[in-house]
């Protein structure tokens, strides 16, 4: 007979160890999945996790790690604040799209002006776009007690339609010979997010680092961070101690929206280059996994974001070299979240094996 006993405090050791264990178990289960697909499991795992960093063409793939990691980390940091307080923004993908459109819109409005002011303005517009899009579920929740999960998610589909309309209409490249998509920011030095393209470094990574540090200080040293944690762990206690839930909702959703918007802007003005129908590749959803894998802790998210970026890159290599379908990586990422959630049991509960009848 197996019984569970709630720990008075979550185990610190296990809370750090479970993500690592979850990754290992996912590798084993993923290996089985790849085997079932007719690929060599060891080769597939090596291609995904080893080759991008240490393989023959690592010089090409290592910069990609930063390119793909930056948006994931930026978005996940924002999401983690809300998740900690029990405020579920799962529409980061929409905020990412709208932030990208707003920032790019400002940049395109100034085209072809060359000024060092253009890019900062784009950054502001990107953050504003994401923030404003996240304010819709936030205000509806505050005013009408509407479920923020469903509203933020519905707005992803709306944002996708806005994106389609923008890249086919308002923001379409006037010199693009009728092809959909805006002008390419890689041909516009003032509106370009690259710091060093060869190293894969763009302003998104810089902002991701700043966000990690800010979130760390906020959660550990600031009363607002304390209130966020308190609300998540004991919402009644938080209310008695005078935490204003309205302000907390507006702050958590607003900051996660702004960060997702920034991520979208940096993606459009750098790696993606233009506003196009399919510039979003689901970072907003993968960031949910990143946030949990990083235990909603800023440093953890930094590492988790890089790991998740690795699975993206490794997945692409495996797709090219081994013919592994791209969806297999999606399944792999989903499995990771499953194992992580299941293993969380060990963090919060003690598992006791008792002989039946003798308790």
């Amino acid at each position: 007979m197996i019984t569970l006993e709630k720990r008075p405090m979550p185990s610190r050791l296990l809370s750090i160890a479970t993500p690592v264990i979850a990754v290992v178990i996912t590798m084993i289960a993923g290996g089985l999945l790849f085997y079932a697909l007719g690929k060599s499991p060891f080769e597939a795992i090596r291609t995904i996790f080893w080759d991008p960093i240490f393989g023959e063409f690592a010089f090409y793939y290592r910069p990609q790690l930063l390119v793909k990691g930056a948006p994931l980390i930026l978005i996940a940091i924002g999401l983690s604040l809300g998740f900690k307080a029990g405020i579920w923004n799962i529409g980061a993908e929409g905020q990412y799209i709208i932030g990208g459109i707003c920032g790019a819109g400002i940049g395109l409005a100034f085209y072809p002006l060359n000024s060092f002011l253009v890019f900062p303005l784009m950054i502001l517009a990107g953050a504003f776009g994401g923030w404003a899009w996240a304010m819709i579920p936030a205000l509806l929740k505050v005013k009408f007690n509407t479920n923020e999960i469903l509203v933020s998610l519905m707005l992803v589909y709306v944002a996708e339609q806005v994106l389609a309309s923008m890249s086919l209409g308002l923001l379409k490249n006037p010199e693009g010979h009728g092809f959909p998509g805006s002008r390419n920011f890689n041909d516009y030095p003032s509106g370009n997010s690259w710091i060093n393209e060869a190293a894969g470094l763009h302003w998104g990574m810089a902002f991701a680092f700043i966000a990690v540090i800010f979130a760390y200080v906020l959660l550990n040293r600031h009363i607002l961070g304390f209130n966020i944690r308190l609300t998540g762990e004991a919402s009644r206690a938080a209310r008695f101690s005078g935490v204003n839930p309205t302000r907390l909702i507006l702050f958590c959703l607003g900051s996660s929206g702004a960060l997702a918007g920034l991520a979208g802007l940096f993606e459009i003005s750098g790696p993606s280059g233009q506003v196009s129908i399919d510039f979003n590749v689901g970072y907003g959803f993968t960031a949910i996994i990143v946030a949990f894998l990083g235990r909603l802790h800023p440093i953890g998210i930094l590492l988790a974001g890089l790991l998740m970026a690795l699975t993206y890159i490794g997945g692409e290599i495996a797709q090219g070299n081994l013919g592994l379908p791209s969806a297999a990586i999606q399944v792999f990422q989903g499995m990771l979240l499953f194992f992580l959630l299941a293993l969380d049991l060990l963090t919060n509960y003690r598992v006791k094996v008792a002989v039946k009848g003798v308790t």
Partner: protein
Amino acid sequence: MDLSAINPVLLVASLMVAATPLLLAAIGELVVEKSGVLNLGVEGMMIVGAISGFAISVESGSPMLGLLAAVIGGALLSLLFAFLTQFALANQVASGLALTLFGLGLSALMGQSYVGIKPPAMSKLDLPVISDMPVIGPIFFSHDPVLYIGVALIATVWALLKFSRIGLILRAVGENHDAAHALGYNVIKVRLLAIMFGGACAGLGGAYISLIRVPQWTEGMTAGIGWIALALVVFASWKPWRLLLGAYLFGGINVLQLNLQAAGIAIPVEYLAMSPYLITILVLVIMSADKSGAPASLGRTFHASQ
């Protein structure tokens, strides 16, 4: 623009078809939520149902076997969620999201070799004379069997919840799991069965899209219907008949916007396509003031410590 091309009788008939996947997924989720569990994985279970149903019916040539496979597929996937939330005591919101993300990936993987294939057609109800009657015939008597199953499910769930002992136990578990546990009901078992019922319904709803409504397989083809189904349960205040009304309302909006697109109305296609989602938000706002119908234990983890 030519609005006269829109035939009201066909519009009603096709809105019933458009509403059915939504209806099936939502009635399943209603039962799950009545048992006190919030499963946000509806979208994932639907899309897995869509591809399992599609694959099996293409391989076997029988749409009925396909539907059965979709029911099993959805229920199996929901077992993952049940394990996470009921045995590993994981957060229900996070587990539901995980189920959706996993389901979307899994379905894309399963469906690779099924893109662009036509599934075997489902036969439709064809009663002599009655099905050929004007207006009433196309609206009530010439649909596929699943559509009628959907309406029958609503009636069954309503009757079971209202009049039967099983319904009473389910509601007790959902309203106050500690009290239900103290009375000797097996909370975990009740919730497990409810979650599986929800998965089966969502799977059937998904297969309805890929086998009957579209009928074709494309990646991510459920396009948020699972999420709208979740919103629909809130809209219906957890009442089965209002679910039927809501599903037909949403089906109507969707069919109408598609018809307007086809008729070439002056509104850009993108704005028409986003209308179902915007209306969902609007409805959520209107309905959110009244949370009285929500089961009191909704979303809370149950752990019997004694």
